[in-house]
């Protein structure tokens, strides 16, 4: 089942203003750099973006924020971004903050056909406002609903022509769940290989969750906090 498209332009065909997008990555680690660049180029706007973070001012989702293409962010943590702060405080940008574990599970649920589940996270906080509460084993839990997206953009280390993906180290993060939850899931990979090259036992995301795949032209892989120690 060949999922390969020729380039990022083809990969994003059909994307429109006002759509809901998911974007994999944690901080700047494992983000779909090529797809984000193309979103900027296309200039589509009024987007709802579901992403754990919002990039930094001049990289990642920050690039879309600079161009005011995002109407609403659904994230768990949005620090490190001045333009984000400005738009949020001025009311230009709507922000829905979600506990990180609930965000991950809500994406998985969206892909797995589970419309809602109970979690203890956020009980007794403003996150629980307006949500159903139910006790299990004497402990209150809140009902959280599934998240899905018109397009999900994920970034993998290697992928094959069938759309099977493997991720490298912590660049995995939210990518596998978001791949499950996209109506159209676009995977960009550092290396595209023929079907049969990936060991079937060690694929992280089965190709059934991926509709389009392409090899990214260029990965900057910017490091947010370069922390090192000296050789003694």
């Amino acid at each position: 089942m060949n999922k390969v498209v020729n380039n990022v332009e083809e990969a994003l065909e059909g994307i429109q203003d006002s759509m809901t997008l998911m974007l994999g990555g944690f901080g700047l680690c494992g983000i779909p750099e090529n797809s984000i660049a193309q979103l900027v180029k296309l200039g589509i706007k009024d987007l709802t973006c579901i992403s754990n973070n919002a990039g930094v001012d001049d990289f990642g989702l920050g690039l879309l924020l600079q161009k005011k293409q995002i109407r609403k962010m659904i994230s768990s943590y949005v620090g490190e971004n001045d333009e984000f702060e400005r738009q949020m405080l001025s009311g230009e940008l709507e922000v829905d903050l979600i506990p990180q574990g609930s965000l991950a599970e809500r994406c998985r649920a969206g892909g797995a056909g589970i419309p809602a589940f109970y979690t203890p996270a956020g009980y007794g906080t403003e996150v629980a406002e307006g949500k159903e509460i139910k006790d299990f084993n004497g402990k209150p839990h809140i009902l959280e609903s599934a998240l899905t997206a018109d397009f999900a953009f994920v970034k993998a280390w290697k992928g094959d022509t069938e759309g099977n993906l493997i991720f490298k180290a912590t660049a995995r993060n939210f990518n596998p769940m978001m791949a499950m939850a996209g109506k159209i899931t676009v995977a960009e990979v550092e290396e595209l290989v023929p079907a049969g090259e990936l060991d079937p036992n060690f694929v992280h995301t089965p190709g059934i969750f991926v509709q389009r795949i392409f090899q990214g032209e260029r990965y900057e892989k910017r490091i947010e906090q370069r922390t090192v120690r000296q050789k003694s």
Partner: protein
Amino acid sequence: MGLDKTGIAKRIAQELKDGWYVNLGIGIPTLVANFIPEGIEVEFQSENGILGMGPFPFEGEEDADLINAGKQTVTLNKGAVIFDSATSFAMIRGQHVQLTVLGAMEVAQNGDIANWKIPGRMVKGMGGAMDLVASAQNIIVAMMHTNKKGESKLLKQCSLPLTGVGCVTRVVTNLAVLEIKGGKFHLIERAPGVSVDEIIAATEGEMIVPSEVPEMTI
């Protein structure tokens, strides 16, 4: 007065038990990893998808694809494992992580914690903190006893929006170690050179003070 941040981290490290999986928050908690007691083996979980997180890499060996939850470049210890965010929070929510150490802006005597939002100020988000505090069996808060204005951070009731309710089990500050049970703070230890009166003065919440309060050994 009392301990510095390193001192707080050292004292918290004494709480570690052999065989525990531990999640350390950003700031003082991160320092705890440097002071694991001899003869004890613990493994650090980073909620972006690492179990068995190691020290920072040597200069020139940083890998942009290998970071911790604070977005810092890190390494993996032998036997480490990588997983996705849903699996990571399955570990946390499912109580497979034995200890969470995190910072706070306020802690209440009933165990409530506030550490993510100050009304009127830019909100960065709760990240994984709400999942962690709602799930962990042992939650130790690492923080200064008072804020920059000198006001107590150990309160009858939190004034800031909550991160979690009735969840904190211990607080280690620059002045003291306190346990939370039965809706009250219990003074367990005082920092070297800090008097019980100083701790009482810096604590707004109700606190049970035993007749004898031992000094920490760091």
